[in-house]
């Protein structure tokens, strides 16, 4: 089974549009104080091990402690940071050369082994690492997996055949090669994710075993090192690592302060008790601009909100029914009145943040046209009752009810929003093929590529294709895209695949998210990236 995961889904349905990102922040007044520290809001991270961290809070902390092989530029194309070069002639064997001079915070030199040990640990199934699926493209991944012979039963799964990936080979201290199982043109893009950070020898108590307590004080290769240990539910403090060879941060350190409720963090940023509030709560969006002025900011994020049609329900099998429902929804009205423009209406099937995105690929089907929608719906014999199922703990009620009211008014059908307590309850119902009606879903990308939307969401075996959409032509085009020789050729294939989605409408695109964040009067140059992570090398303290 193809298993891919959405990164960082902790912040629920906020966030989302393309827009004013590049406007920078704070203005240029005042000198910056290199000896000051800043505080940044996070939630309690689930883990602080690179191969196990996939929530945005954990990513935020690790991004300060580690430097990735590649990072993403303004166009979201990868460029080398800790890597000197990432090259391949055939898209199968990739040679990664490391920059000299990087050291871990305990003084150890960063070498090829630091990467190989970390990745092997992450891919080895018995370690139960949350990011192991990132390594599945590398040759030999299957040998590190094992399946329980009796499902969830009492027998234990046998030991996997191997504990190292055959696709990883050390060439010299600063060079290693990665052999993929299948050609993949965009492998360099994937390398920017948290899962591909290195680990020092100090992380392991024995080969392949992470030392107890390492997670509470991770040692990385990044611009900041830990100050003390991770104080659970309270804070994680870091300070500048002076031997860092890359771009030096402009602050002496940072406190990542843990909040359980977004409203508490917002109250703190209002009174300058907190420097960066990464997610402004929805209920404060209408007043935030007045409260904070230009300290309330927005930047593009990768989230994509949609509702899907379960294919196991016959009444939704006709594309015309699905198109009619889509045409009966006034997206702009909902983004305006409910989300206060903090999200933008979506009329394509991938986020605007990835290369290859085109506006309005959905075409007429996503245009608000109540008259035509009703006509089409009746002609296609759509069901007289609609239901939208959502998880009640994610703040979705308002917009689901608003959408239902639009469907009622514009299609002349009955429509109810049905809340399940948690997302897992919703999934259980879908798995059991209970009649759930339309399903509310969302997606955050792991790495900026069209494939990271098309693959998991719409291919037959996609990890988040809960609604059972399946089209062999679509699967083939995505497959050809991943195997294409260059990223540009890949994008062409992906775009052809997206056109199939527009014709069949397996899901209704609704909104693209954006980061809505706020900062105190003490700091400037606050930037929040596509992964909802504050750039800790750019932020400055006004002195």
């Amino acid at each position, binding site marked *: 089974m193809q298993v891919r995961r959405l990164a960082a889904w902790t912040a629920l349905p906020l966030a989302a549009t393309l827009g004013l990102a590049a406007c920078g922040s704070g203005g240029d007044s005042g000198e910056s104080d290199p000896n000051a520290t800043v505080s940044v809001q996070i939630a309690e991270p689930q883990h602080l091990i690179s191969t196990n961290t996939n929530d945005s809070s954990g990513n935020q902390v690790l991004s300060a402690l580690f430097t990735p092989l590649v990072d993403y530029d303004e166009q979201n194309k990868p460029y080398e940071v800790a890597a000197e070069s990432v090259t391949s002639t055939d898209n199968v064997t990739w040679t990664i050369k490391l920059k000299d001079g990087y050291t871990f915070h305990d003084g150890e030199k960063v070498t090829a082994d630091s990467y190989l040990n970390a990745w092997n640990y992450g891919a080895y199934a018995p370690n139960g690492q949350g990011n192991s699926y990132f390594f599945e493209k590398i040759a030999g991944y299957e040998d590190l997996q094992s399946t329980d012979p009796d499902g969830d039963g009492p027998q234990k799964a046998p030991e996997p055949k191997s504990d190292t990936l055959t696709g990883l080979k050390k060439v010299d201290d600063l060079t290693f090669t990665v052999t993929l199982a299948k050609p993949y043109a965009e492998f360099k893009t994937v390398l920017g994710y948290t899962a591909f950070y290195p680990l020092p020898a100090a992380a392991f108590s024995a080969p392949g075993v992470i030392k107890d307590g390492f997670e509470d004080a991770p040692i990385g290769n990044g611009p900041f090192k830990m100050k003390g240990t991770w104080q659970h539910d309270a804070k994680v403090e870091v300070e500048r690592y002076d031997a860092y060879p890359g771009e030096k941060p402009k602050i002496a350190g940072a406190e990542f302060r843990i909040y359980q409720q977004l409203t508490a963090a917002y109250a703190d940023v209002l009174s300058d008790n907190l420097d960066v509030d990464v997610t402004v709560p929805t209920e404060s969006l209408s007043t935030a601009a007045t409260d904070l002025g230009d300290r309330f900011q927005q930047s593009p994020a990768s989230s994509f909100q949609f509702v899907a049609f379960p294919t196991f329900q016959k009444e939704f099998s006709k594309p015309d029914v699905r198109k009619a429902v889509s045409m009966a929804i006034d997206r702009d009205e909902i983004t305006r009145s409910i989300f206060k423009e903090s999200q933008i209406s979506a009329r394509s099937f991938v986020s605007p943040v990835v290369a290859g995105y085109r506006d309005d690929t959905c075409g007429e089907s996503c245009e608000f046209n109540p008259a035509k929608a009703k006509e089409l719906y009746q002609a296609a014999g759509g069901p007289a009752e609609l239901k939208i199922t959502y998880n009640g703990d994610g703040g979705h009620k308002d917009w689901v009810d608003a959408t239902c009211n639009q469907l009622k008014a514009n299609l002349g059908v009955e429509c109810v929003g049905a809340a399940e307590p948690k997302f897992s309850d919703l999934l259980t119902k879908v798995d059991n093929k209970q009649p759930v009606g339309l399903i509310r*879903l969302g997606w955050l990308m792991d790495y900026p590529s069209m494939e990271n939307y098309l693959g998991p969401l719409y291919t037959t075996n996609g990890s988040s294709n809960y609604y059972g959409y399946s089209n062999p032509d679509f699967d083939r085009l995505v497959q050809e895209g991943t195997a294409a020789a260059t990223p540009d050729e890949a994008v062409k294939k992906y775009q052809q695949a997206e056109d199939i989605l527009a014709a069949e409408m397996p899901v209704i695109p609704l909104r693209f998210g954006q980061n809505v964040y706020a900062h105190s009067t003490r700091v400037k140059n606050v930037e929040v990236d596509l992964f909802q992570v504050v750039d800790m090398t750019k932020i400055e303290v006004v002195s």
Partner: protein
Amino acid sequence: MFRYLVRRLLQMVLAFFGTTLIVYALMFAGQGDPIQALAGERPVSEAQRAYLTEKFHLDQTGVGGFFYRYVDYVGNLLRGDLGDSLTGRKISDMLAQAWPVTVKLAIIGLLVAILVGVTAGIIAGLRRGGIFDNATLALTLLVLGIPTIVLAPLAQYFLGVKLPLFPPTAGSEPSIYALLLPGIVLGSLSLATALRLTRTSVAENLRSDYVRTAKAKGLPIRRIVSVHVLRNSLIPVITFLGVELGNLMSGAIITEGVFNIPGVGFNLFRGIKTEDGPLVVGLVSVLVVVYLVSNLVVDVLYAVLDPRIRYE
């Protein structure tokens, strides 16, 4: 007295195991898919699901599975091991971190209730029908009518953000000053009830025979009130406050969330949200002990306040 205490302590042991069994059963029955709940909306990989299922014995389902896990839990409990939370942390560590701050908060709340509530109650009782009495009646009704979920954010916004008298949030190692606002919010409900109780009780006792006798034999009014009336009036108030201490500790879910205090309520909320059975049972077990002990202390205090009460 000694035999009474021993009997009460033995009852406490029974009550303790009874409640853990019930709480464990409730958590077990309400458990959908804790692994998915932990992951939120991310799909869970096969390898990780297998790993967590094995680690937390989640493969044992049904009635047999329940008893298997409960016996396992109690066995570990008796050895002093509260087990691991589904997040991988030791529950004993989490409790050790969460309790001190919650106890501090509860004590501040209780002090506020006693100092303000009981004092104002006495004054209102002594001057029954006066302006002070009527004003406190209106105020306490207002406070009793506003739920904490409204009161806490309002207090935070007006007293923390708009008029910065207090820090808007307290954080993990708060000073007493930072805990004052959450403490007042938390204690305000008990304050109002304590005030009403004291007032009624004092007003009633002022009309009793022994007060008339004391007045007749020429005792100064201050002594009548402070020694005779108060001592008799405080019995119902003490009962209320004793039970309230437990309530203040467990009832801080909202207050701790709003003021970002990582205490018991904060952890309980998270435990329930992520279906973290072991964590919820661990927290509730300690809460049960708090309730039992505070009730015992209240009962013993009766005897101190009223010598006519004897325990055998």
